[in-house]
């Protein structure tokens, strides 16, 4: 790193929120130390933004921010069923302002992606969960199981931060359960392979093995027995999971089976899980939604108070979407969209440029394990934060 290196700063390129990052901004592409390709791309996209980009657009045409706010407020006032979603790059401050606006509008708030296949109601409220922060797993877990995730691609420094970097103790075992040949699978000490459709059966069988009640014979027996041998040998185990297990049809049942298994295993040893969120802003947004409304996930405020959304198609009937610092979801064509984000969004009826958190603006984000962290602004800019825009929208809407 040259002398001009900035840092340490927090990288919001993924939910890991590494806060030990030093930036070299001297070249065309931002370089990071410790190195991370995903993080470098994330910073480069935000640092090298074209200076001539407009501050806002209406129907794709450059506009003043004030005019865009007026237009957005008019759309929101006229909406019968507004949706607020996105949050992939949101700060806690942005999410607080978003839920405040949603409360005023009586909007539907989704921290999941509208249109994704419904996995079922959240599994956590059914039985609970056992979790830990990164340091707990790094320092205590002798066996770490990665269940159908590829953090080497999605959270590139996860394994290093869980203690599987250079010089990690040899007595630790990295188990990867995945039938795909992924960079993560290539690093496994023990690799287990079966198709995704067998995950529920595998979890149920592991639970039976844990209770010393052998399950009905299957072709997974040898692999499951090997896994249980590793787990039984150690006092502390961690399981890393995410959408690979919990997304889509039947996701709730698989997630529930995982939590039942880890709970049962917890009687004899310490067992924790860690979920990988799809983006850096999701964990914080879900936490804000929980403390402001009492519910996490998706919450409908249309009735004048929060209601937990438990529905296969929660966004049905939506006529306007306010997307906050996130990628567009596949909404029906008749749904108009207001977008807040750092990059121009020609498809949105109204787009207002907001400062990129962690690059142009400070803020708070919640790491994938819930730890709240400060985001810095190594290239502070002129654009307002999403929180500021949402607060102005709240005033402008005037309901």
């Amino acid at each position, binding site marked *: 790193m040259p002398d001009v290196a900035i840092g*340490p700063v*927090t990288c919001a390129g993924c939910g890991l929120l590494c*806060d*030990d990052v030093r930036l070299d901004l001297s070249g065309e592409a931002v370089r990071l130390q410790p190195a991370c390709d995903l993080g470098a791309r994330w910073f480069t996209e935000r640092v090298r933004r074209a200076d001539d980009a407009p501050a806002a657009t209406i129907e794709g045409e450059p506009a003043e921010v004030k005019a865009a706010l007026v237009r957005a407020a008019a759309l929101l006032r006229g909406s019968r069923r507004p949706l607020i979603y996105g949050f992939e790059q949101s700060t*806690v*401050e942005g999410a*607080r302002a978003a839920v*405040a606006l949603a*409360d*005023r509008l009586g909007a539907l708030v989704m921290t999941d992606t509208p249109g994704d296949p419904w996995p079922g109601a*959240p599994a*956590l*409220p*059914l*039985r*609970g*969960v*056992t*979790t*830990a*922060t*990164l*340091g*707990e797993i*790094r*320092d*205590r877990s002798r066996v770490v199981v990665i269940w159908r995730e590829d953090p080497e691609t999605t959270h590139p420094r996860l394994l290093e*931060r869980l203690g599987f970097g250079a010089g990690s103790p040899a007595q630790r075992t990295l188990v990867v359960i995945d039938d795909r040949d992924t960079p993560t699978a290539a690093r496994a000490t023990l690799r287990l392979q079966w198709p995704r459709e067998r995950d529920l059966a595998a979890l149920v069988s592991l639970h039976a093995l844990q209770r010393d009640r052998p399950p009905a014979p299957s072709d997974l027996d040898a692999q499951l027995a090997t896994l249980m041998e590793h787990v039984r040998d150690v*006092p*502390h185990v961690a399981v890393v999971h995410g959408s690979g297990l919990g997304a889509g049809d039947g996701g709730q049942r698989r997630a529930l089976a995982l939590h039942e298994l880890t*709970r049962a295993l*917890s*009687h*004899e*040893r*310490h067992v*924790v899980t860690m979920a990988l969120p799809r983006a850096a802003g999701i964990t914080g947004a879900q*936490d*804000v939604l*929980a*403390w*402001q*409304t*009492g*519910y*996490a996930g998706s919450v409908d*405020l249309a*009735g*004048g*108070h*929060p*209601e*937990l959304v438990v529905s296969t198609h929660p966004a049905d009937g939506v006529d306007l979407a306010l997307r906050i610092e996130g990628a567009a979801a596949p909404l029906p064509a008749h749904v108009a969209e207001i977008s807040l984000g750092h990059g121009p969004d020609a498809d949105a009826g109204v787009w207002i440029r907001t400062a990129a958190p962690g690059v142009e603006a400070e803020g*708070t984000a*919640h790491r994938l394990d*819930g*730890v*709240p*962290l*400060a985001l810095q602004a190594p290239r502070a800019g002129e654009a307002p934060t999403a929180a500021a825009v949402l607060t102005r929208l709240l005033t402008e809407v005037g309901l």
Partner: protein
Amino acid sequence: MTAIRITGGRVHDPTNEVDGEIRDVCINGGKVVSDVGHDARRIDARGMVVMPGGVDIHAHIAGPKVNAARKLTPEDRRDDPLDRTELLRSGTGGLVPSTFATGYRYSLLGYTTVVEAAAPPLAARQVLAELRDTPMIDSAFLILMGNNQVLFELIRESRGAVSSQLRDAVAWWLDATGGYGVKLVNPGGVEVFKQDNGNVHSLDDEVPGYAVTPRQVLEAIGGAVDELGLPHPVHIHANNLGVPGNADTTLETMRTVSGRQAHFAHLQFHCYGGKPGGQPRSRAPELLDYLASHPEITADVGQVMFGPAVTMTADGPLSAALRDLDGGKWLNHDTEVETGCGIVPYRYRAGSYVHALQWAIGLELFLLGKDPWQVMLSTDHPNGGSFLSYPKLIRLLMDRAFRDDQIGRANQRAIRRTALLDGLDREYTLNEIAIITRAGPARRLGLRHKGHLGVGADADVTIYHDRADREEMFATPRYVIKGGELAVEEGELRRSDDGLLHSSSARFDPDVVRVLEPLFGDRYTVAFEHYPVRDPALREPARIVEAGP
């Protein structure tokens, strides 16, 4: 700011030795003043009871533990929605209300200051953000230090003595987080649980890997807090909570800290005779005897109320035990270096021997205690029950006939093993209620502007109809004045203001970071320079209470 004269009310202001006198209370500029002009707003409080705003010394209202409980128990809030209004944010109630609902409901109950009693320092940003979203009440939070590996290292170095480094480290941590005081939860035991599901069982069990004992943690950190002169003494959730026979541990803990100021949390859960694994019995009288001869020690009761509760604690091994007992939902979260967290929804049943005994022990602590300044009201919300059950608890203390009726409904085998059937006819006076719900907690917290109505006090005032049904009286104040403004009138919120955060400040040698930084680097996964919370939006406005003798 509004000038107000509250006229003709019967004033209970124990701090200023005012016990039911009919007198005016004047307010201006957010403070209690000696007089106001004729143009001041007049509140006719004739026939009413006037007290300082309530002060909750021990509750769980904000932070990752509380928020995890919200996520775990959506069904608890489904039937208790709060609609948004032009003035108020919407929310949900239940045992673990949303933040806005928490602020509103405390205010409607006549409480104006609440202490979050267990915050992981690493999560201070979230605690602060949640408290900023909790309107109408002033707040403070206590940071968890009883299982902190960095402090363990300093304690090992000092061989359990209070060192200057340890004092500086405690003060640094408060400065870094905005915390108000220091909480010790099952000192040493949570660390052992996180290692391999173990626990400590006596004050002299060694924490593997650290060569420190719970006794050393109590002596060193309790001593550091005392020597720093923090406004609130060390706040202790002792080892072996809930275990039959734990009264021995509690007494030993009291002896360990005696001579220094200390506050014991939810004492009811620590008063049990019997043997581990067996049936508990009450040893509350022994604990009270000890308190009577040690005025430097105070406690809040942690009364359990029959009905639903949500147990939430940094005491991970306790929560795992409840999981096995209950078989229902369980949430566990381990926070690196610092602490743990366990949550189990629970229900206290009048017919259960153990639950009835817990209920009765709580009442024993209230009714057998000699000094109400020493034993304060709490349900360890929501562990023993919601803060919304305080009015019923007050009625249990003030109304013997009601209490006897309730005693008759509880498991009699348990009741017979307590003093409740020994002709215990004590009924709390309004003045005693004012002590255990506001004057006592405020004094113990070192909040000199709270809990009283003397000139210069914060103008936090609650005015009640003087009703024979004390539960009804305390459930619906006629007026609540917060910071000099009329906040509640006849059960309706009239405004929605932000509360004021209270933090404490003690001097420390800034060079302590040279000691702490290397210890952080080996343990935390957060950069040392990013650990302190400096964001003004979270830290300000705040009232900083300076440490000192």
